[in-house]
């Protein structure tokens, strides 16, 4: 499903070169729920950006669903992102001027679905996250947990094979975080592959697999139940 071999990513300025990822290797199989932990600056978000085709990389090979993505142009990468990947962001990233219906509609329009198909998918996705009755509300009228649920609905409406979550509970209180985590587990059980970046070891324990990233490399792999390092103090 997702295979990264010796991925390298370097950020350059006039003064410094920062190796965000070096010889990064990872394989995520279909149906996996992988939690990626690590200290700040370890390369978690860079990994997520590359996995989600949000950034390019300098070296190595990345196969997404068997397709080598390194030579794709912007249009092809955008299309692949739209069709195969769903994103959940820490800050929800809903568009404040659009109501819930239009927010969930955003990726579906880029997909080129007709109006009836989009409506069906939007209603179904919002129904799944329990917000079908709030379709005409603006994001600002919802709680943080509800906004993240809308973001999840938006990510799932296109029925992606692969869900990337960047600290999905980072801006939520414990109760909301638990609720969102339960929803992600349900989505995973329904067959969607999930890769989640998190600082929270307790959330990571809910995933099927844990990856610990340090200095741009996958330094430790844990199976469920093993003790994880405290990311914040690592």
């Amino acid at each position, binding site marked *: 499903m997702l295979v990264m071999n010796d991925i390298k990513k370097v950020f350059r300025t006039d003064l410094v070169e920062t190796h965000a990822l070096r010889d990064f290797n990872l394989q995520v199989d279909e149906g996996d729920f992988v939690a990626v932990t690590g200290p700040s600056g370890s390369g978690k*978000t860079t990994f*997520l*950006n590359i996995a*989600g*085709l*949000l*950034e390019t990389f300098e070296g190595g090979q990345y196969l997404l669903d068997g397709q080598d993505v390194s030579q794709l142009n*912007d*249009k092809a990468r*955008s*299309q692949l*992102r*739209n*069709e195969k990947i769903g*994103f959940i*962001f*820490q*800050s929800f*990233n809903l*568009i*404040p*001027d*659009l*109501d819930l219906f*239009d927010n969930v*509609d*955003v*990726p579906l*329009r*880029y*997909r*080129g679905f007709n109006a009836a198909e989009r409506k069906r998918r939007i209603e179904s996705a919002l129904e799944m996250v329990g917000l079908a009755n709030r379709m005409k509300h*603006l994001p600002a009228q919802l709680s943080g947990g509800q906004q993240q649920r809308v973001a999840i609905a*938006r990510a799932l409406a*296109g029925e992606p094979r692969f869900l990337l979550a*960047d600290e999905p509970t980072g801006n939520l209180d414990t109760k909301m975080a638990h609720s969102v985590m339960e929803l992600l587990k349900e989505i995973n059980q329904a067959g969607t592959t999930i890769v989640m970046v998190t600082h929270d070891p307790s959330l990571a324990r809910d995933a099927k697999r844990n990856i610990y990233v340090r200095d741009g490399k996958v330094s430790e792999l844990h199976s469920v139940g093993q003790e994880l390092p405290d990311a914040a103090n690592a």
Partner: protein
Amino acid sequence: MLEIGPIFRALMRNKVGAVLIAIQIAITMTIIVNSVFMIVERNEKMQRQSGLDEANTFHISSVGFGEGFNPRSTVEADLAQLRALPGVVDAIQINALPISGGGWSMGLQTEPGAEHDGTGVAVYMVDEHGINALDVEVIAGENFAPSDIRWRASRSPTWPNKVILTKAMVEKLFPDSPWADAVGKTVYINDNDPMIISGIIDKLQAPWVGWDNVENAMLSPERMEFTATRYLIRTQPGQRDRLMPEVEEMLASSNKQRVIRGMRTVEEDRERSYRGDSAMIKILTTVMVILTIVTALGIVGLASFSVNRRRKQIGTRRALGASQGAILRYFMLENFLISSVGVVLGAGLTIGLNILLVNTFEMNPMNWYYIPIGMLVLWLVGQVAVYGPARRAAGIAPATATRTV
């Protein structure tokens, strides 16, 4: 897929900037379209032909003084000298000059009697050389014969019994019959003095370019026995500037009992008469250019602000599958919608201002096609102005979506 619905709904929820730009576009369109209409009208007015061979014609005044000054012999001698000059096509004594700003006008009527209204006409007193010197064409009837020419004394109230009229004047006097049939008909000047139309000329404008009857002119067969007089000289092509000082010198030296002055080309007369129109065109053009630039900068400013404010949102859209082209289209379309509101509002305001101008300044009503052309231009200005900010938006990296600062 075009996002007209979501963009429109989003604009409606955050509309202050968009409404201000739409109003700016509307005002700009109103002023630009009406200005263009006025410029085109003024330009058409300035392009009208006077009927003269303007590039090769000039005029000069002679003012006699002293008891021994004989106007009649002076005019005869001057014309003989002028016509004999190599390079001169023809020369005449004339009382007034087309498009010069000053001249004589009378009223002509088809029935005698003070109870009838006359039609205003510019009067040019010329001899049989008038047709050639003015470079007009007799399109019906005939030119004056030398025997038709009389001498007019100063303050003489009488008129010759023949007249040549412009075609435009004939059509006003006899609107119900073919213009060529007017030859031989009688018109009346000074209410009751009859003049027989001996010829019709194609075109000759009056001295006053802003006059409603500017195309109404008559040639009266007379020379003037006045102390102050004026000569119109038509030269061969390219000879005018060489002949002007020569003529001035010749006239000044041939008779010491007069002053030669006021020598000007007809082109200078045209420039003087249309100076106001020319200045108006320049002012309106400047206002249009400045307004267009200000409006374009306003659009650039709003779009740039919008792009900077929505960097995260753009990154999110990119992350959700928008290509760079889709982001570019989004901002172009957003501007198109704002511009559409502006130009529709502008169309109404443009018509309103035109009605106001028509009623207040007796301008002509604007042709309908100015409105859609104005809308297209403003749409285009908007699209060009927003292209830069839209390109910058399209260049925002999708990874911006995951950045927390």
